[in-house]
C-alpha cells in the first residue's frame, strides 16, 4: 500500500518538524502526568487551609514512617537476593547453556504475565491446600510474613535483574576471557578479575531497577504480607481509599518520591539512569 498525495496543507507540513513531535509527546506527558504530580504536591501542603507542614509531620511519625523505612529495607533485601540469583542464571545462560534463545525466552515469558497473577500464584503455592504444604506439611511461615513479601518481590521482579546482567555478560569480548586462561588464570580468578568487573554496568543497572520497583510495590505486600508488612504503596492507598485523607496520602507519596529521587540522582552521577532503562 502506497500513501500518495496526502492532503496535508503546505503550511502544516513545513511546520511539522521533529521538534514539534517532541513537543507533542512531552506536552502530553506534562499535562497528564507531571501536572497531576505537581497538583498532588500542592495538595499535600494544605493550601486551602490548615498548617502547611502538618501532613508531613504526621507522615514522618508512627505507622507511616515505619512503612517508609520498611519499604526501603525490603527493597534492599530483595535487590541483594535478586542480584545473586540473576547473576548466576545470566552467567549460566551466557557461558554454559546449549540453547541460549530458549533459555532467554523462559526469562522473558513472565514479563508478559501480569504482576497480580504471579503474586497470586505464589500465594496459592504456599496456601494450606497448595503444593508446598502438601510436601512439607506446613508453609513454615512463608506466607503473610516478611519472608513471603521478599519471596514474592524477588520472583516477580527477577526478569528485570536478569536481562541487564545478561546483556553486559553477553557483550564481553571472548578474547579477553581466553587471554586470561592463556596467561594461566583459573576459572575462579577469571570470573573475579575479568568477567565480573566487565559486567558491573549490568549489575548496577539491575540493582537500580530492582530497587525502584521493589520499594514501590503495592501487590507484593498486599497479597503475600501480613498486617505488619505494609509498605509505602499500601499505606498511601489505605490512607486515601479507607481514610479519605488525600492530603496525608499525598504527603507520604511526596516524601517517598523525594527520597527515591535523591538515591537515584546520587547514582546518576555514577551511571546514567536513562541508559540503564534503555538496556531493558
Amino acid at each position: 500500500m502506497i500513501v500518495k498525495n496526502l492532503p496535508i496543507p503546505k503550511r502544516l507540513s513545513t511546520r511539522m518538524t521533529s521538534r514539534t513531535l517532541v513537543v507533542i509527546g512531552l506536552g502530553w506527558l506534562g499535562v497528564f502526568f507531571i501536572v497531576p504530580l505537581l497538583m498532588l504536591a500542592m495538595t499535600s501542603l494544605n493550601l486551602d487551609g490548615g498548617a502547611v507542614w502538618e501532613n508531613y509531620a504526621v507522615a514522618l511519625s508512627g505507622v507511616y514512617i515505619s512503612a517508609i523505612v520498611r519499604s526501603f529495607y525490603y527493597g534492599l533485601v530483595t535487590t541483594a537476593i535478586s542480584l545473586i540469583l540473576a547473576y548466576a542464571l545470566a552467567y549460566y545462560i551466557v557461558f554454559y547453556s546449549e540453547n541460549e534463545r530458549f533459555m532467554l525466552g523462559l526469562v522473558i515469558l513472565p514479563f508478559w504475565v501480569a504482576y497480580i497473577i504471579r503474586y497470586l500464584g505464589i500465594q496459592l503455592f504456599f496456601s494450606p491446600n497448595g503444593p508446598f504444604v502438601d510436601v512439607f506439611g506446613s508453609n513454615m511461615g512463608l506466607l503473610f510474613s516478611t519472608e513471603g513479601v521478599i519471596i514474592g518481590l524477588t520472583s516477580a521482579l527477577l526478569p528485570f535483574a536478569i536481562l541487564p546482567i545478561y546483556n553486559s555478560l553477553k557483550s564481553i569480548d571472548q578474547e579477553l576471557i581466553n587471554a586470561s586462561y592463556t596467561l594461566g588464570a583459573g576459572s575462579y580468578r577469571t570470573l573475579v578479575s575479568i568477567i565480573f568487573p566487565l559486567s558491573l554496568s549490568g549489575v548496577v543497572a539491575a540493582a537500580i531497577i530492582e530497587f525502584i520497583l521493589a520499594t514501590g510495590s503495592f501487590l507484593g505486600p498486599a497479597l503475600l504480607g501480613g498486617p505488619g508488612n505494609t509498605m509505602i504503596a499500601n499505606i498511601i492507598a489505605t490512607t486515601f481509599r479507607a481514610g479519605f485523607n488525600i492530603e496525608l496520602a499525598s504527603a507520604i507519596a511526596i516524601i517517598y518520591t523525594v527520597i527515591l529521587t535523591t538515591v537515584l540522582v546520587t547514582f546518576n552521577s555514577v551511571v546514567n539512569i536513562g541508559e540503564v532503562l534503555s538496556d531493558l
Partner: protein
Amino acid sequence: MTTDRFLRRSGLLSVAVFVYAVLLVPIVVIILTSFTPRPFPTIPTRGISFEWYLALLENSQLIGALGVSLVIAAFTSVTSGTLGTITAFGFVRSDIPYKETLSTLMLLPLMISPVITGLALVRFAGQLRIGSGFVAVVLGHTVLTLPYVFLIVRAELVTFDRELESASRILGAGPVESVFNITLPVISPAVISSMLIAFVVSFGEFTATQFLVSSGTTTVPVIIYTMTRSGLNPQISALSTVLIGVMFVAALVSGLVNR
C-alpha cells in the same frame, strides 16, 4: 580440569533450575489449580475438571469486566503506540537542548510507583470533571505504557538506515510521504511489538487502576484482587488462566512479527 568444569557446570545448572522455578512456578500453579475438581485451589492429582471455567461463563459481571478490560487495553495500545512513536521520532530526528534529560523525563512513569500515578490521576480527573471510569483508566494506562513504546521504537529508529528515506525523496516523494511509505513500514514490527506490550500491560494493570475504575467500569485485575480478599477459590485461578492465555497470544504474535 574436566571434572572441575563438570562439577561447576552441574552446580550452576542446579542454581539455574532453581531460578527458573522461582520465575515460572507461580504461573504453573495458577494454571494447574484452575483444573482442580475440588472446591479449593489444589493441584489436581486425580482427574481434571472444567467446572470453574463453566462457572466463569455464567458470571455476567465477569464477562462484562473482561470486555471492558479488552476495550481499555485496545484504546491504550493505540493512543500509547501513536504518542510513543511520534515522540520517539522527534527525539531521534531533532537536535534539542537537554535531549538526554528530556528523554529521561519520558521514562519517569516507569520510576514513579503506580500507586502515586493512580492517586495523582484520580485527583486530576476529579478536578477536570472527567471523574473515574473508562476515560480515566485509558489516560492512566497510556501514561504507564508510553515509556515502553518510546524505548522500543526509539531503539529501532536509531538503527534505521536514513539512506532509504533519502532515496525516496530523490525519487520525488515528499518528506511526510517518505515517512509513511518507507520508514513506518520498516519499523512497523517494533511499533506493533511495543503496542502489544502496551496492550498486555494495560490488560493486567491493577495498582494504578484500582484508583481510576468506577463501579460501572471495572477491569478484570480489579475483580481478581477483590476475589482474593474474600478467600481463594479455583474460579480465581480459572479467570487468571484466561488472562494468561490472552497475554501469551500477545507474546506469540509479537514473536512472530519480529522474526
